[in-house]
């Protein structure tokens, strides 16, 4: 039994090592923006409280095994010891208290995450930007409706600025996740969604899809580049000046199932914005009216599966 105890102590120290040592590599424990930081604080708070419970269980467990293991004398053996109301009430109430201690910050954080992140103390509020994200099999498409540009499999944001990602799905569901900037949200074909993220500093953050979407799923990785305001503006201008325009037929090619490399376009067909807005409006309408509407944009769903002949090599090629 001592072996078991040693192993458990080993496991715990491993846990501590990870929590204190190499957090840089552990994206979730290395928050780089206010959203991720709120979630990080909640995670640490829950680790502390649950580790307390685990420690109590472990101490009692080791105590009873050492004290009442068969090899010891039978002092204290009491086969009819069948209960103790006071003790039982105690170990019902303590978890109740812990649940309350967890529930209050959970609910607070949930409501806080619903809106844009508040500016840090002493900082002036910066205008939020909006980016429309579409997941298609198996790539991420980013459209900047205010700038009229589109990128694929990477997205550039200004540092210290709240970014509202509107999330759409072309066919299967995916989940939009950039662990260092904040938790994920699904992209769903029948329901546009939103996710607020913000980066504290200039940096390069890895994102990926967290919901399985078929053969090319493992390649659904993208980068979020955070730049200074000046660099961000320069980047947009550069895209507008140097990249090709996206035509509707090119866009439809892009939607076909495949893994692709990163790319950027100086403009995209305006009807895509219209479609996105219509879906958003319908969503808002549904939230208020609670009446489902059945007419969906059939055209966007009517893509045939001709592109399915991708080989597995191409999955790995497209980063």
């Amino acid at each position, binding site marked *: 039994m001592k072996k078991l105890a040693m192993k458990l102590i080993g496991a715990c120290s491993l846990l501590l090592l990870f929590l204190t040592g190499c957090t840089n590599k552990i994206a979730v424990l290395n928050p780089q923006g206010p959203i991720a930081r709120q979630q990080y604080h909640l995670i640490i708070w829950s680790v502390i409280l649950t580790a307390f419970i685990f420690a109590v269980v472990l101490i*009692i467990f080791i105590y009873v095994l050492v004290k009442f293991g068969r090899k010891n004398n039978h002092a204290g053996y009491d086969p009819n010891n069948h209960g103790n109301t006071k003790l*039982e009430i105690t170990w019902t109430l303590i978890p109740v208290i812990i649940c309350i201690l967890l529930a209050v910050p959970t609910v607070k954080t949930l409501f806080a995450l619903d809106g844009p992140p508040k500016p840090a103390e002493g900082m002036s509020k910066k205008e939020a930007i909006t980016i429309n994200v579409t997941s298609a099999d198996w790539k991420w498409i980013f459209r900047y409706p205010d700038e009229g540009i589109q990128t694929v499999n990477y997205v550039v944001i200004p540092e210290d600025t709240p970014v509202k990602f509107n999330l759409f799905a072309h066919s299967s569901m995916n989940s939009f996740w950039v662990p260092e900037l904040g938790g994920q949200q699904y992209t769903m074909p029948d329901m546009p969604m939103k996710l607020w993220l913000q980066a504290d500093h200039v940096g390069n953050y890895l994102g990926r899809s967290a919901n399985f979407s078929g053969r090319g799923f493992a390649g659904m990785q993208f980068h979020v580049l955070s730049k200074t305001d000046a660099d961000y503006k320069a980047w947009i201008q550069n895209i507008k000046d140097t990249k090709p325009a996206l035509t509707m037929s090119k866009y439809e090619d892009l939607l076909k199932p495949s893994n692709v490399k990163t790319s950027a376009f100086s403009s995209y067909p305006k009807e895509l914005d219209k479609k996105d807005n219509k879906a958003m409006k319908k969503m808002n309408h549904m939230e208020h009216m609670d009446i489902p509407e059945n007419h969906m944009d059939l055209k966007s*769903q009517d893509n045939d599966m001709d592109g399915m002949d991708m080989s597995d090599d191409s999955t790995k090629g497209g980063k």
Partner: protein
Amino acid sequence: MIENIKSFLGSFFVTGDPMIYGADASIALASIGIVFYLTYFKKWKWLWDEWLTTVDHKKIGIMYIIAAILMLFRGGVDALLMRAQLIIPNNTFLTSQHYNEIFTTHGTIMIFFMAMPFIFGLMNIAVPLQIGARDVAFPFLNAVSFWLFFLAAMLFNISFVIGGSPDAGWTSYAPLAGLKLDPGVGENYYLIALQISGIGTLATGVNFLVTIFKMRAPGMTLFKMPMFTWSTLVTSIIVIFAFPVLTIALALMSIDRLFGAHFFTIEAGGSPMMWANLFWIWGHPEVYIVLIPVLGIFSEVISTFAHKTLFGYKAMVWSMIAISVLSFTTWLHHFFTMGNTAMVNSFFSISTMIIAIPTGVKIFNWLFTLNKGRIEFTTAMLWALAFIPNFTIGGITGVMLSLAPADYQYHNSYFLIAHFHNVLIAGTVFGVFAGLHYWWPKMFGHILNERLGKWAFWVFMISYNICFLPMYFIGLMGMTRRMYTFPSGLGWEPLNLIITLGAFGMGVGFLIMVWMIVYSAKYGKRDTTGDPWNGRTLEWATSSPAPEYNFAHIPQVETVDAFAHMKEKGTADSIYKAPFQAIHMPNDSGIPFILSVFFFIAGFGLVFEWYWMAIPGAIGIVVCMILRSFKDHDDHHHIPAEEVEQTERAAGRLS
């Protein structure tokens, strides 16, 4: 013409992968071997009379467990293939498609065809004995349940050599599992096989509910029932409420796929999220269907080997009931990240973390059952003891996951994978292993070898931690589930390597266990007393293996731990004292097996949309039911008193 046949065969059989050809060959060889063995040793009649037609709950239990161990092997091989693929970055051992099929079948098989049948097997063996009954309430239906499960499992398993396996995950989320994004027969296998085995499961739920309510020995009130019987009762109720939801969900998706409806795809106004809701309204209670029975097993094993009555019996029962009710109020926590309002997520966060309270009560009650006991470290007890800390890790990470904002960071990452394997392995798997060791003497009349059992325990349990603890960290690093490969340079390599080593260690543990079973069959210590562990409940009052009729006389129950009480009072021999009377028993029947074969035929036809095959299969099902309805008058027989006396004498019970 020949071209047509060629192209048909090419799509009918899965081709192109040497591993699949290997599987084809091994399936063919194993089948030939079995047929040869049965023919050469003239065992066909024995197989039919003793096993295929039996309605004896103990034999059905044994068949459930054999099938579950086979499925554990199959699901385990799937797991090892996945881990072999993920041992290094950018590995090409498996293709994406092959990997997707394997993780789908791994999950589906482990839940539906390993965990549940293993548990049903132990219920079948122990519950009628624990309540002093001669069989379950509906023995015929019990056989139907088993054969439906077994043939559904076979139907699901042939998918990897015939037609192709499902590849949309065991959760089979729409729209990915819809016809457009996933053409082919794979998903049909999933839908039809689970539907067939689900019918069997629902029948099992009804069967055990009625058995426990109506067939308890005189004097055994509800609050004098053994804890495993209580857990079975609670589980049966969850099954009855949860499984119809799965039935409906599977039926709707089958209609989508086979007849072109759009319940779960948006083309005609369907909703993919509806599938997520229906699936998890069944799926979360399902987690407790495979967990609550093992909580009962742990209570039995811990109390027996601490040689002490269970601490806080009533609290144990009420906490189980509380968990079963709460299990229906938490399904949404499986998709906190699907755009719910803050209010909705708050509700489900809190309803989820509340489950920790009754679960915590149970953990402390087990700890205090050990307190003031005389703990005996048998293999069964080791599995039960290991459950406490290992399951607690799964429990506290479950609480961490219940915090919706934090879940946004854990969802679908390896953190989640680590969590549910921590509860399902430390809970369900440790539990069925504990139960297997504990009840093995009652099933077969000998004790499993303790030395090999302990080796298997330590190898498996340590490897399990090596495998799953690193997953928490690799999840926090951003690795998501169901990635068939991962890029290098993200710092994921060392942990993935460790995880794979742990997985193979568990495989070694499993092999030791199989060797232990084979070795014990030959050299295992015989159990001549019927009570090898100094047990406390009624299954230990009869001889090992239990006779067909279970008890020569139905026991009289006065307290909890009825058998311990009888031994104290010196009345333990009251159940096998002469004179004996004739005992009324159900007749064997071939109909459950034949009925299930028709289900298999109809199911296979539906998978391939071959209605010329499905319709005759369906007719066969109806004919079997009609035949059964006419056999009501001669479905039982009496074992004469003399035969009962002979059996008891042969078991050494009469001097």
